[in-house]
């Protein structure tokens, strides 16, 4: 796919299997590490699963918030990249992120966020191979502004109503 990409998430198709988390942490950490995965699936209520990852906001509040120039946008993929050398772990980007996707690594305390795997997202592959296709790569331009930079508990609430018809 030429040009920046976006990982579209179809919540209704998500099974909560977390293969995406396993794939992401295997790739970036070399082991299974749920809290270090750049995509994380929240399950506030059984059966209501919310895959949560960077929404690549077009105004990139996280990048703007960083005083140390540790964050930049990758031109070709559109991903936010973290320069671990420059990141001080101050958490300004965390506070700026509207969906609280950006966060500090549980061990290194540096900012971590989805880097789109350089354009070949591992999470999407895992989800597709398992037949769920809850995640899909689409051109960045096709996605509405900030639709996905919301908190997962808000998504879960709406999803609960869709799936179970409310209380």
């Amino acid at each position, binding site marked *: 796919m030429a040009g920046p990409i976006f990982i579209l998430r179809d919540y209704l198709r998500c099974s909560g299997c977390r293969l995406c988390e396993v794939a992401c942490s*295997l790739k970036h950490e070399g082991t299974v590490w749920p809290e270090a995965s750049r995509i994380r699936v929240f399950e506030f209520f059984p059966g209501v699963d919310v895959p949560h990852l960077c929404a690549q906001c077009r105004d990139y509040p996280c990048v703007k918030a960083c005083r140390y120039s540790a964050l930049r946008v990758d031109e070709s993929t559109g991903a936010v990249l973290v320069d671990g050398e420059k990141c001080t772990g101050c958490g300004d980007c965390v506070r700026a992120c509207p969906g609280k996707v950006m966060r500090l690594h549980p061990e290194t305390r540096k900012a971590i966020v989805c880097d789109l795997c350089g354009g070949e997202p591992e999470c999407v592959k895992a989800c597709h191979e398992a*037949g769920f296709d809850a995640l899909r790569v689409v051109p960045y331009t096709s996605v509405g502004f900030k639709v996905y930079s919301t908190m997962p508990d808000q998504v879960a609430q709406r999803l609960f109503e869709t799936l179970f018809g409310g209380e």
Partner: protein
Amino acid sequence: MALYGYAGRLLEVDLSRGKHRVVELEEDVAFNFIGGRGLAAYLLWRELGDRWEEVDPLGPENMLLVLTGPLTGYYPGVKLCISGKSPQSNGVVGSVVSSEVAVELRAAGYDGIVVKGASKDPVYLYVEGENVEIRSAEHLWGLGGTETYRRLSRELWGDLKRRLLAREGLTKEPSFIYIGPAGENRVRTAAVMAKLSHAAGYGGYGAVMGSKMLKAIAVKGFGPMPRAKHPDWVKLLIREAWSALNRNVLWKHWGTSSGGYEVASLTSSEPVRNWQEEWHDSRSMGVQNYEAHWVKRYWGDYGCPQTCMKISRLRSGKFSGATTDGPDYELQAYLGPNLGVFEPRANVYLSSLADELGLCGIQTGNVLGFAAELYEKGVLTREDLGFELKWGDAEAFARLMSMIARREGIGDCLAEGTARAALKLGKLKGVDLSKYAVHVKGVGVGAHGARSGKDFPQAFTYAVGVQGGDHTSPPRLPVDRQWGEFTSAFEDSAVICSFNVHGDLPFQFLRAITGWDITRETWMRVHGRRIITLQRVLLLLGGPDLYWDPRRDDDNPPRFYEPLPSGPFKGRSVSREEVESQKREYFGYLGWDSLGIPTEETLRELGLDYLKPAVERIRKRLGAG
């Protein structure tokens, strides 16, 4: 010291004194007993073995074990093993449940939790790395599954968010296991629950949690899975396992729910009206009638490509709002045809009620069927129950289920489980009720009959299983076949899902993760045999209220010797000679004598010399030299 694949630490919590400490998991113990079920048996033996017979499973001296294994979190699909001295069998049952608590525990730096003693007031345990708190559960006590889940998850995540959101960002919600009213009331068929409908049912550990006044255990971890010896090999294996498991489309679509009608019609081994029959001509239990109620999505647990679970939700009618998983085949059968219920909606409702009350659907369906047959035969009357209990009357069964969970009226007696209820009621009524009680060593058998010979249990399966009537751990011949007692002992000890086992992969994972040279062959000869032998000794020690005699209790439920009255395999029953000869062969393989007591030589060979005094106690009680 390098112990790969383990945190090397267990969290020990003493509820009587309100204290906790971290204890080391020694490398040789891990190597000999692996984890989960095997480790549980060993820890129980080490702590309680000398006075096993006197330990009341529902007393403060029993321990509740919540254990992971070296494969947990790495192998596709997550499982957690719950154990302790079982209030059903008085032995050790390794009861597994899908719960992310297992992943969280390993991420928090523990291989498991050992809960000792008992609290005076309702509490729940919260573990977050080194931070361990025993918190009040007054506000949760008495609540059903849904409410417990809601309040606890809101409370726990709310707290995490408050503390961590601004500083380091959003964390995933903690996971927890909990009990419903049945566990609180020490009902022997109470399960330890996870999510809404996941249950560690066999063993009765919900009652053990209840006896400790422990409503829930919640865990939050931030770290990776314990270090593997060969991380790159593990990565490759995970990929290989995924691609193998992804091919199983049937499973993904229907899970075991597809069995409802199939097992009855094709193999004639589904319990019908308390096992009086094992076949039905009703077509209503087919998967297509359940699909109508399914929330249209797949549902899986951590790392599982197979997602066998299906969420059922009734959106209208008198049972509107009922939500459950599947029901899976076991609950379709036990809370369906076994009660003469052939209406899927009523089945979904009964299944969701069992979840809500925190009851094991298998064991409770078993005791409900038992009660209904006694009602049919006139042994139990309207006066005994307070209402009529006719086959197919879902509302009457629901009422009785609630009475069991709350130990009200006749429910108090039935809350003891089928085996003990049969003894108690039999005494009360002055009749022998054993022929209606379809259990083995206090554990109600799974929904798989042995009479037709077409499903998996062999003639001797239930008779000799160290986990009693547990259908997920079936002894089989030849012993090295893919699905038998030895492989279940592996799955429950490495703590992985038996539905995800594919060829030799689990053993390859074990080697890649731990670096130990344990193959399928050494498992059959040494490790597996050691675990099963230890479980057998603890089962035969038994007590304090019931003891098993191999000459009487290494047997099928009497019902399995009655010829099938209907269906394609009409007239068939289990053959006694076959049971006896299979028993001999099996005991021989294990190195046990004709009563199924391990010989001195076997104990020596397996490094279990320390069991000698216990074995002598068993022989003495049986008057067998």
